[in-house]
């Protein structure tokens, strides 16, 4: 499956990447190659094989509902590019998601 330039731009927008036209042109065949590689799985996938979502044969890993210590706030906010009023400061939000 070959990706069009518009599809590359769309994927780039979702990832918040700004691409030049030259980059789009270069990436389209590369991304198409990756897709083609993944599509090989389809050639061997059979109806009687359950899709795998995880490499480990593990299920039901859980924990009891018991509080554990959180991090000290100064350590948490030390990782923030900008902190204000004990909160993470981020640039103005332009559109709402979720």
């Amino acid at each position: 499956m070959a990706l069009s330039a518009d599809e590359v731009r769309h994927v780039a927008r979702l990832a918040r990447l700004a691409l030049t036209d030259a980059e789009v042109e270069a990436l389209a065949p590369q991304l198409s190659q990756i897709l083609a590689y993944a599509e090989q799985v389809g050639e061997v996938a059979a109806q009687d094989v359950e899709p795998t979502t995880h490499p480990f044969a593990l299920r039901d890993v859980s924990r009891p509902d018991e509080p554990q210590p959180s991090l000290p706030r100064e350590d948490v906010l030390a990782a923030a590019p900008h902190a204000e009023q004990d909160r993470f400061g981020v640039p103005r939000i332009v559109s709402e998601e979720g």
Partner: protein
Amino acid sequence: MSATTMSGEPISATTAAEHGVDLLQGDTGEWELVVGLEVHVELQTRTKMWCGCSTDFGADPNTNVCPVCTGQPGALPVVNEQAVRDATLLGLALNGEIAPICRFHRKNYFYPDLAKNYQISQYDVPLVNDGWLDVEVPTGDGQSVSRRVRIERLHMEEDTGKSLHVGDTGRLHGADRSLIDYNRCGIPLLEIVSRPDIHDADTAQAYLRELQSIVRATGVSDARMEEGSIRCDANVSVRRPGDELGTRTEIKNLNSIRSLGRAIAYEAQRQIGVIEDGGTIVMETRHWDEGRGVTETLRVKESVTDYRYFPDPDLVEITSPAEKVEAIRTLLPELPAASRARLGEAGVTPEQAAAIIATGLLPWFDDAVAAGADGAAAANWLVGDIAGQLSAEGLRIEAAGLTGAHVAELIALIEDGTLSTKLAKQVVAGVIDARGAKGPAQVAEDQGLRQVSDEGELRTIVEQVVAANADTVEAIRGGNDKAIGALVGQVMKETRGQADPRKTNELLREVIG
């Protein structure tokens, strides 16, 4: 727009006719309203969904956070088993099927209230499928009609952080920066998606109210809309009867059951107007403006594929074998429909029963009856004067210290003639003032509130009033029976409102002759 659910099946909606709901009248003919609701419920677990951070409401900003809920590289989420148990319990209460195996997906989007840049949610295989809810919709004449709303799915996910927009009035647009508190980020959240089986605003409101009551009955959340522990979005579309589903809009910012009803009614008329004027409905998210009573475009909806859902490699599948599901089923409490039936048998009217359940007063009712109160009387006091006084004070019953035993004691004091209804209301105020430290009998004694029904004492006062109001007495003797009310008032005044009204009336008639 793809007419499939997240699990890939075609969307199936009921019709207004099946539910006996009237169509909407437009300028060019009749329209059928089709509504589906997405309800989010925040669970009341002690810890978050994927980490051991406390879920304490109102903690200082960013004090309940750790590497997992702030999305630090390498941090690994681990499922909270209590959250899965709670979700299963609610799923069973909603008559759902528990999936033997379910898994978690990442829903990818950039928004700073989720530090990971994705929300862990469920996609193709949610925990619960195919539930339903029977809702009682009031018909306005004191009666109600029962309508079934099917539930497509209930899935587990996580809540987001809270943003504070600064630099202007606090609204999103025009804010110059946003400040994020991640305390709420990662708190277990359930999303309950109804089928588009709702065809009028009343049924939508009844559904949300019933769901809220069920959530509270199961104890998995306090389901308070004003605090955001239950939230509702509405998917609204219109179509000609018999047509395919129309394009839907999603309405957000519905902060009360009343807003839900108003927003649906507004949006239905807006869509009909657009189509009748030759326009088309755009699939978008719209914001309900409560003050102006309108919906406005918030953003054009991203398609599901844009979220690039994929199974979260950090989490493993959750299994729900039959024996585990059945063990949880035994924990199901009495559900609101059964409570309503039981209250009805105790002599409580359907409206009062609904109010008792919806406002979470059932434990108080049960305690009052257990302490000897008559059911009808207990219901009257709880949803009547007590609820009124609490609301006026802005207090919850637990904060006011009022117990079911207090209600029973109050009713007993009325029944034995110690208190009139009027005095009993003052006693309720006294108990609330004392935050329950004093019971009704104590309050009545301390404040000297006691109905004067001692015949000798009352007769003396009645005779004085009759002697002092010769004109009125003449009028009564002359056939103006209503004038007796003025004399009752005089007796009440003399006794500071403590005379037994029934006895006062009897004695007045006797003395006047």
